[in-house]
């Protein structure tokens, strides 16, 4: 029962938090650039407006253009349900297992790639191809880094991993954990199409990865694609923040604890968002064919983390 409540709270909170996070990220960036910025509620306004438009679809686009965005949103919402964000009380039959989480995320990745191909344009296919190449190369890093986290906890269930770190905080600064965290962060940057892998603010088609796939979508189709990506970013940042700073997460259900959990995860995600935004100021997008090198580097770190945790501890 408490698992259901926490899951519900997580979904509602992140549906609210994800656009806010994007607003904060954009606002911080605008402030640093010397602009006034559109305010942290702008993504909400964008969404409301997109839902109030009459979408345009090409005659050649199939049902994928309609279903794909929904699949992306559902996969991101499932991430919000299953990840240990507000609380670490998992469902008995579908725990927040690492491999299940990654596969659910991949549903969204696939949906987006197919939407990109569906329009039958050059740009959509290009974005889709690049997106899938990056996704394929990210997966080893993603799995290995969380594998490294899982070794001290003795299980691949993310909520147990977070709980273990809460109980023995010295794990957080162990070299294994630091290496794995760096690797995981790079993997997540690649997965959520942030700098230096992709430039989320670009308007130039040839440099696009993520954006190129959405060029054909409009109105509510576009809205779901945007929400899905935002939710994914927010949920993954939430996971990272709980791995770095597990304090505040609910382990035993109580109303007060839930309140603390909600506030703490919101603060953690937003702070991480600000850090991300500030960090991105100092980064330039790397060339597409240097991305594999970056990912190989992160893979090497994750791999070192795993072997080190096997052989050192």
């Amino acid at each position, binding site marked *: 029962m408490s698992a259901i409540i926490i899951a519900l709270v997580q979904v509602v909170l992140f549906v609210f938090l994800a656009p806010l996070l994007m607003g904060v990220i954009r606002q911080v960036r605008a402030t640093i650039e010397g602009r006034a910025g559109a305010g942290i509620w702008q993504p909400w306004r964008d969404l409301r407006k997109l*839902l*109030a438009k*009459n*979408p*345009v*679809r*090409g*005659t*050649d686009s*199939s049902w994928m253009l309609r279903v794909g965005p*929904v699949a992306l949103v*559902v996969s991101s919402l*499932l991430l919000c*349900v299953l990840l240990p964000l507000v609380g670490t009380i998992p*469902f008995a*039959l*579908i725990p927040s*297992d690492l*491999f*299940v989480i990654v*596969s659910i995320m*991949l*549903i969204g990745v*696939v949906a987006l*790639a*197919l939407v990109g*191909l569906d*329009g*039958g*344009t050059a740009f*959509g*296919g*290009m974005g*889709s*191809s690049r997106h*899938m190449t990056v*996704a*394929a*190369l*990210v*997966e*080893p890093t993603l*799995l*290995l880094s969380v*594998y490294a986290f899982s*070794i001290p906890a*003795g299980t*691949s*269930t993310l909520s147990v991993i977070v709980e273990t770190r809460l109980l023995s905080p010295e794990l957080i600064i162990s070299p294994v954990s630091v290496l794995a965290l760096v690797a995981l962060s790079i993997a997540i940057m690649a997965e959520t199409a942030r700098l230096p892998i992709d430039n989320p603010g670009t308007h130039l088609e040839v440099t696009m990865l993520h954006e190129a796939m959405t060029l*054909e979508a409009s*109105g*509510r189709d576009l809205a779901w694609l945007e929400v899905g990506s935002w939710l994914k970013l927010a949920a993954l940042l939430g996971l990272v923040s709980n791995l770095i700073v597990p304090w505040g997460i609910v382990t035993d259900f109580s109303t007060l604890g839930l309140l603390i959990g909600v506030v703490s995860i919101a603060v953690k995600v937003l702070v991480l968002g600000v850090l991300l935004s500030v960090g991105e100021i100092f980064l330039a997008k790397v060339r597409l*064919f240097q991305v*594999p090198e970056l990912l190989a580097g992160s*893979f090497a770190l994750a*791999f070192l983390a*795993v*072997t080190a945790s*096997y*052989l050192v501890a």
Partner: protein
Amino acid sequence: MTGIGAGLLLQLGLGALAVVTALLAAPSLRSRAGGILCTLIAVTGFITGLAAMLGATGGLLIPVALPMDPLLLAPDRLGGLFMLIVSGVGILVSIYSMSSTSGPDASRTAWVAMPVFLVGMQLVPAATDSVSFLLAWEIMTLGSTVLLLADHASRASVASAGIWYSAMSQLSFFFILAGFAVLAAASGGTSFSNLQAIEPGSAAANVAFVLLLLGFGGKAELVPLHVWVPRVLPEAPSHVSAAMSGAMVKIGVYGGLLVCVRLLPDGPAWWGIAIMLVGGASALYGILQASVSSDLKVLLAYSTTENMGLVFLGLGASMLLRGYDATAAADAALVAALLLAVSHAAFKSTLFLGAGAIIHATGERNLDRLGGLGARMPVTAVAFGIASLGAAAIPITSGFVAEWMLLQSLIHGGRQGGAVVSIAASVAMPIAVAVIALTAGLALLTFVKAYGIAFLARPRSVEAADAREVPSLMRISLALGALSVLALGLLPGPIAALVATTVSSDPTAAVQTVGLGGVSLPGIGAVLDPIMLVVLSALVAIPVIVAIIVSARRHPHRTVDLPWGGGGSRARPRMQYTATSYAEPLVRVFDDVLKPSRDVQVTHVAESRYLVEHVRVEQTVSDVIETRLYRPVLNLFQRYGKAARHVANGSIHRYLTYSFVALLIVLIVVSL
């Protein structure tokens, strides 16, 4: 006579009937009659296999193998499982092939070979001694070779494929024969119960292990013995490719299991590591080649290599872990490998049948000339899509559960109760996880490409634009295949528990059923219930769908005739990304492994060399193993062959001289 024996006898009888029917039936009726009889064979095999897997004993004694012991066909639980896999694929293929009415698929030769192939495959897992095993193996190989060659008259490439296939099959057969011979010599008998008695660490066991692994690895498409795969599977008729990839390859897996689990268990640690290495290399190499391939059937063929690599990776991991007494993880890895074999049978036969449907509708298997088939062939599109999800290991399909179990057993296998099992295992497990992860990522790209390019977007050729949905029997077969992929993915618990009984001494300790068909690995502490996952996603989807319905009522969509292509009027289908361009970034990333050859020809306008009239870019990715390993060897043979032609020039005198010299040499040797 027991039920199992009756089932096997019935199969043999039906097989004979099917052969006779194929010989006698009128061409118009041949496919129907043959198809119905083949379906009956497969259904009988399915029931027999199921009974054997559930623990029924009994068999069929054929007292005609003088001078050796009489042949005994009596499948054990493991054999039953593989009979089940083979016959399941057999049912799909038989239903599918019924609708072919003309051409080589409906020829007399093809319909004679089909039941032979099916029965041969059924009998291999039923064999209890090496002689009947090899006999059944040869029947299977013979049937498949004839089926492959049925089409040789119309296409030259089929003949070349046939040569490769026969050569590689005979190589496999030779290795297996040699392996069994070594074992039989060491143990003094040909039946498996005799062979089992051999000392695990002995030299004979080691030699036999390597020989049998080579033999079965060749059949299971493992690197570097996979070279026949990209030639044969694409060239064979699609339902035959489905049967080969879905069923026959599993017989290779069965052989591997026979060796590693039944005949030579408790081998040294290097056996497990060797199998893991071969499996991991096959998985990576297979999927890399598949991901850059633009030919739909070549892509599927290489992906089979990948999947079999993963199966053997699981098998090797299980052997390694069993050596360190990590029984729970070892059992889980073995069950995962078997589950992957089962699910591969489901999704890969559906994929090959789907490719067959595409070829039936368009005559094309080059992805670069397909596109937009989703709207034109909806049933095929959905079935192919579900099977692709299975091949890409996406949740609620069978492939996902199998890979999930494999990864779980690997990440928990390196440690037992907080202590490292061994240095070897703790190094091997992370590498294995990394290999599986990269494989899974590339598989995702491969099948997004295959599905997205073939079924979505705009047709890239006239043939694709004119495609129509395939006949109803083909659709039924495709739908059955897709349903089996979903069923295996949604109810992994009971299936895994059943599979565990075939290989584990304590199946309930390895796998249990939880919730609504969910699977739990008690020794590892991992739980997964796909049905709950579906319920959960349905729950979160409801608000989204409601929002869409409300929004769609208020703000209806508008359709325009062109996709957005920068406003230009020439956003033609030719400007779309093709399968080749889709894989281009990957080809660059793995440049050092794939060694693509690029050829760019620029033709300039006659008036000025600064203006380009047209550019032709050609890029081919060939099989590196074939060009680097087989070609030199083959060239060497060819050179010796030429030399031999001088020696054997047909002159009777010369041959007599050879005989005479040989006789003299023998006499000299004897006298020494």
